[in-house]
């Protein structure tokens, strides 16, 4: 029996074991939302929750990445055992998930056996909807025909491949393990293995990169007719090796205008190729091929994140796990939740996030909701006038130029 008590968690806690824990329903928070309907947070239909599993292991660290992972692979078994305890804790609190996302870190480095163990853990603790979207993030050089078969047999139906670039010199700058040839081979193998939902990750806006160099990678990716593309502008985070380089003035990133040109060109090019630019960095071949899992983040739909550093959101409350395999395992071994922090969102905070998500996605914001507030109403009209947003089907939708300003537009709307 696992005593699951974490002092910092208002909604958690039980005296003698997790069976006795009343998890959220009936907590002050859920009552509050039941009464106050001033701000419709959730999708009206009550979309099913999503499950995220953070696989915190990488063979090498990429110098731009600030997700948590470690390069020592010895603790994989410990991590799976601990994750089992964490999953068991939450097992009764969620209905069937309709998405599962294995992210990292590098989920593809797990052996087929390790991954099978992980799936057993998840399927034992939780139930999944019949046509759940199950995504696995993979590094090109982990991809083999055998692994692909194993993944498909486990139920993985969506592959997200971290190609980042098809130009060898850029791949080396990003210190990726694979080669340009390796990436091409990996995508061919996936196609041959019969996956019909492929997403390719690319990074642009590298120091010295020209627009045509970037389009070269993009066009090569399109050769594989991926159902989905994530095109990220290189973002330098503090505390990463690139962050250090930038501090010393050794990273010459494109200026604001150039970044804008990359973004707009990418958007125009991919939309001409038939992709839907549905989020700042994400493109899908059709509505149906939008990442269902990631979309939950942007709609305040509930999601549970398992593993070190994973974030969860449930009924207006957000919490996040410790970013260390060792501490994660230690907490769970002691019968505690590995939660590092939490926040119960106020209405103002929810509004701010809703606006932020709204300006980042083609889904936009609910207009009747905005127009309930005179200030937001006049801001919406102004954005429309200046071509940063347009109204469609009762929603305010950011335009391509609006996307470029998605970080500051929410601040215009709030007082």
């Amino acid at each position: 029996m696992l005593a699951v008590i974490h002092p910092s968690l208002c909604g958690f806690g039980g005296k003698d074991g997790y069976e006795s824990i009343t998890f959220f329903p009936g907590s002050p928070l859920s009552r509050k939302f039941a009464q106050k309907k001033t701000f419709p947070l959730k999708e009206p239909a009550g979309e099913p929750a999503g499950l995220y599993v953070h696989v915190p292991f990488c063979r090498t660290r990429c110098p731009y990445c600030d997700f948590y992972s470690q390069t020592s692979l010895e603790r994989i078994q410990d991590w799976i055992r601990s994750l089992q305890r964490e999953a068991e804790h939450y097992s009764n609190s969620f209905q069937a998930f309709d998405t599962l996302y294995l992210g990292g870190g590098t989920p593809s480095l797990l052996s087929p056996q390790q991954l099978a163990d992980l799936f057993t853990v998840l399927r034992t603790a939780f139930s999944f909807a019949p046509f759940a979207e199950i995504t696995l993030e993979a590094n090109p050089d982990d991809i083999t025909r055998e692994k692909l078969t194993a993944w498909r047999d486990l139920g993985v139906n969506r592959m997200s491949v971290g190609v980042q670039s098809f130009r060898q010199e850029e791949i080396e700058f990003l210190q990726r393990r694979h080669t340009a040839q390796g990436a091409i081979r990996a995508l061919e193998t996936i196609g041959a293995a019969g996956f019909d939902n492929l997403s390719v990750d690319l990074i642009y806006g590298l120091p010295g990169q020209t627009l045509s160099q970037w389009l070269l990678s993009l066009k090569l990716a399109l050769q594989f007719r991926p159902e989905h593309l994530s095109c990220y502008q290189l973002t330098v985070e503090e505390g990463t090796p690139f962050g250090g380089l930038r501090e010393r003035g050794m990273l010459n990133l494109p200026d604001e205008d150039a970044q804008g040109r990359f973004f707009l060109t990418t958007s125009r090019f991919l939309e001409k190729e038939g992709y839907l630019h549905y989020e700042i960095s994400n493109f899908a071949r059709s509505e149906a091929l939008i990442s269902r899992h990631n979309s939950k983040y942007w709609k305040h739909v509930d999601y549970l994140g398992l593993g070190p550093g994973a974030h969860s959101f449930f009924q207006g409350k957000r919490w996040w796990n410790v970013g260390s395999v060792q501490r994660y395992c230690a907490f769970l071994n002691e019968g505690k939740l590995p939660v590092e922090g939490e926040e119960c969102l106020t209405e103002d905070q929810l509004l701010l996030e809703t606006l932020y998500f709204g300006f980042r996605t083609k889904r936009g914001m609910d207009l009747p909701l905005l127009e309930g507030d005179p200030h937001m109403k006049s801001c919406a009209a102004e954005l429309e006038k200046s071509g940063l947003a347009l109204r469609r089907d009762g929603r305010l939708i950011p335009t391509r130029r609006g996307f470029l300003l998605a970080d500051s537009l929410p601040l215009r709307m709030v007082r």
Partner: protein
Amino acid sequence: MKLRRMQRIRNFSIIAHIDHGKSTLADRMIQHVHMVTDREFRDQMLDTMDIERERGITIKSQTVSLRYPARDGKEYDLNLIDTPGHVDFSYEVSRALASCEGVLLLVDASQGVQAQTLANLYAAMEHDLVIIPVINKIDLPSADVDMVKEQIEMELGLDSDDAILCSAKEGLGIEDVFEAIVAKIPPPRGDESGELAALIFDARYDPYRGTIVSCRVFDGSVKPGDVIRFMHNQATYKVEEVGFFRLQREPRKALKTGEVGYIISGVKTVSDTRVGDTITLDGKPASAPLPGFKEAKPVVFSSIYPITSDDYLSLADALAKFKLNDASLEFQKDSSVALGQGFRCGFLGLLHLEIVQERLEREYDQSIIMTVPSVQYRFVLTDGSEVEVDNPQYYPDQQKIKTALEPFIKASIIIPERYIGAVMKLCMERRASNPRMSYPTPGRIEVTLDMPLAEVIYDFYDRLKTVTQGYGSFDYELTQYRESDLVKLDILVNGEKVDALSMVVHKERSREWGVQVCDRLKEEIPRHQFKIAIQGAIGGKIISRSTVSAFRKDVTAKCYGGDISRKRKLLEKQKKGKLRMKMVGSVEIPQSAFVAVLRTNEE
């Protein structure tokens, strides 16, 4: 007997440059005469010092009576009258000095004679006071006593043999300071049996006792029960209490000729008194008030608005409280299209304005915007009527103005000879005329000029200090209104006129101002999601323009589970920053921009 009493009084002031140790010397003198124990000294005195040090200048003066047993075996009452230290308060300084017979001129042994020392010296000389040079901080390793003595001879024209060496911090030479006060400063004179004539040199508000008036008795005496009259405003009050300023107030049976002390007489607010007014007895008045009274009139005007309009009442309350202790602040209701409801305020000068602004924000917790300061203009209209305008918003229709007049000052600037070129250039840029020069001491020039007041209220003093490397001293007095070619400069932000940024300027300098304000605003207004045009206009005509370019891109690439809280916290922080902004149309103008438009870009 009576004569002997007055023989044992000395009234003096300490004048010094900021940081030359005035407060420390005063505290050390208090400690020396054992008015406080060492422990109390630390508990009580250092607190007041902290406040003074933080402000850098004495805003409200402190007065204290010290009982000193001199080497001649007699006890003396030494009244130390403190003075505020800035040109805006020169009138208050002059009234404090008028209450003294002598001053200690304090000079830092390592820094030597500074500009302000000179200005203060001349103020003291004007009152025919005995001046005792005191060289302080002689314990510092960088002290150069001989250099300072040389300066005292050459630059101040004083006998350096008379200079007293001391270290207030180390308590060295304090006894010598006391002895010099006794020996060199003459005792007060006056007619003890004459009609009461007492000079008000300060007043402060006490929540329990009402206004406490500080005064120097020149003739006659006053005691509790007397009915006194303020000769300027003819108000009468019954005296409740008189006394000396020790560390606390010490009630006395009477205040007599030559003495310095306080009177409590049921005066409600500080504004009911006027510094420089003469107190006499209602039943037996003096034939004439003491000379030198001037009504301290505001010369600089600016509007104060709350950042959020909800705070208007709270601001009104804060101003009313502030006024209890500051008679020179004047205010009345005002409103602006851009900024909403606020108050039009009158100040003695720009420093006074800055002090009020700072204290409202810090002590009264107000978030305010102050508009461009202005002087008071006079206009004779075509229909023969005359209007006074201190707020550019009410500038008359240019077609209807027959004659425009603006206030002029007589500016006195004292500088070492070598800066004369730079100073004259600065003054001429500011429309100065009729320069007269005199040479008060070798190597020094005093320049007297006629200047429009409007040209000195913004940053003239700062510029003067810059071009003279701190050695220029500046003083001014209002002289007259003169005809002038004035226009109103309007500022448009994205085509919308921002009334709070309008200003009245001289026609010849209007283009210069227009360009400066547009350039300034360009730096102050943050980039928006759209281009912002800033224009200066006179009448309907655009005379200057600048543009704040738009954001091209600010979006971050990733927003997944772990990014959301972090990003929202950043937005919340930025949202707080927005509270310091004022929306004008769709443009957010930072609070700082409204005053920053006046800062010139000169080096």
